[in-house]
């Protein structure tokens, strides 16, 4: 009994070990790249060529296949950063803080992609690239939360203080995510309502490529976080023997 409960938590302890993660992730990355490239090849073929043109929006609907996945990841990224912050604060797990720091710039990147693809989609569709409505404003706030997190974290010379302060910002800022998600329901916005998984709201010839692209973006996000987390490990474990043995100088 004791044995089985110990082994079921083994993954948690392993993930908590920078050395274990650094060595294992080197083996995961080529596989993740292979699957992501394949999904992207399929996804781009459909989203740029083989999917139908929208009867109202014309070809500009093709922007959806990167705008929607990027928007999903911008929010999922922030929530995962906040979860890492909680785990780091409660269990004092240093790998969790490292992951939190690694997610921030990548989440910011996906938020940026969401904003400019949204503008480029809005121009031909709504006739404007920006409107201070609830959906767009809250997504812009998300970008500032990511950037604020990075700025706050780097403003401390003491790493423990930096981790804990930035973690609190990550947790408090998480309130913005349900606001972004709900904004199109609660307020009258220019942005359309949620339709991605709603039955009949989106043609299956568009839904399938959209799901492929969402999958590809999730994997791309995972790759980016892993690569950035490995750098964070190098940064924080620079003085440990195992790391110096691992890297070739």
């Amino acid at each position, binding site marked *: 009994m004791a044995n089985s409960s110990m082994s079921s938590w083994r993954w948690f302890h392993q993930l908590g070990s920078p050395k274990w993660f650094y060595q294992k992730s080197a083996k995961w990355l080529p596989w993740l790249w292979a699957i992501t490239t394949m999904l992207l090849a399929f996804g781009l073929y459909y989203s*740029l*060529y083989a999917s139908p*043109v929208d009867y109202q929006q*014309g*070809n*500009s609907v*093709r*922007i959806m296949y*990167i*705008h929607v996945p*990027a928007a999903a990841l911008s929010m999922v990224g922030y929530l995962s950063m906040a979860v890492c912050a909680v785990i780091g604060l409660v269990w004092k797990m240093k790998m969790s803080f490292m992951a939190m720091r690694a997610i921030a*710039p*990548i989440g910011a*990147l996906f938020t*940026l*992609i969401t904003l*400019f*693809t949204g503008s*480029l*989609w809005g*121009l*031909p569709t709504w006739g404007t690239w920006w409107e201070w409505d609830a959906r767009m404003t809250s997504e812009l706030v998300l970008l500032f939360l990511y950037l604020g997190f990075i700025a706050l974290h780097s403003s401390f010379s003491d790493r423990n203080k930096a981790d804990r302060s930035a973690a609190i910002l990550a947790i408090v800022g998480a309130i913005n995510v349900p606001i972004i998600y709900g904004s199109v329901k609660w307020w009258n916005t220019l942005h359309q309502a949620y339709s991605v998984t709603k039955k009949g709201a989106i043609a299956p010839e568009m839904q399938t490529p959209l799901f492929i692209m969402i999958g590809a973006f999730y994997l*791309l996000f995972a790759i*980016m976080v892993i*690569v*950035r987390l490995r*750098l964070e490990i*190098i*940064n924080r474990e*620079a*003085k440990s023997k195992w790391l*110096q043995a691992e*890297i070739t*100088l």
Partner: protein
Amino acid sequence: MTLQEFFAMGNHGFYVWWSYGLTLLVIVLLFIGFAWYKKQLLNKIKSFKREIGQKARSVKTEKISD
């Protein structure tokens, strides 16, 4: 569909290609940023390894001079 028609995207080529192009660009820039950061980190490790080596050597020579 001809190649020209594909690139024109009706009259939405500008918006579609800028969306996809900029997305690709920022992703590439992110990985360039990672590579640059890694180089910096490795240089940092190299320099403090050298310092440790120098300290060890100076301790040795002190002992010999004693």
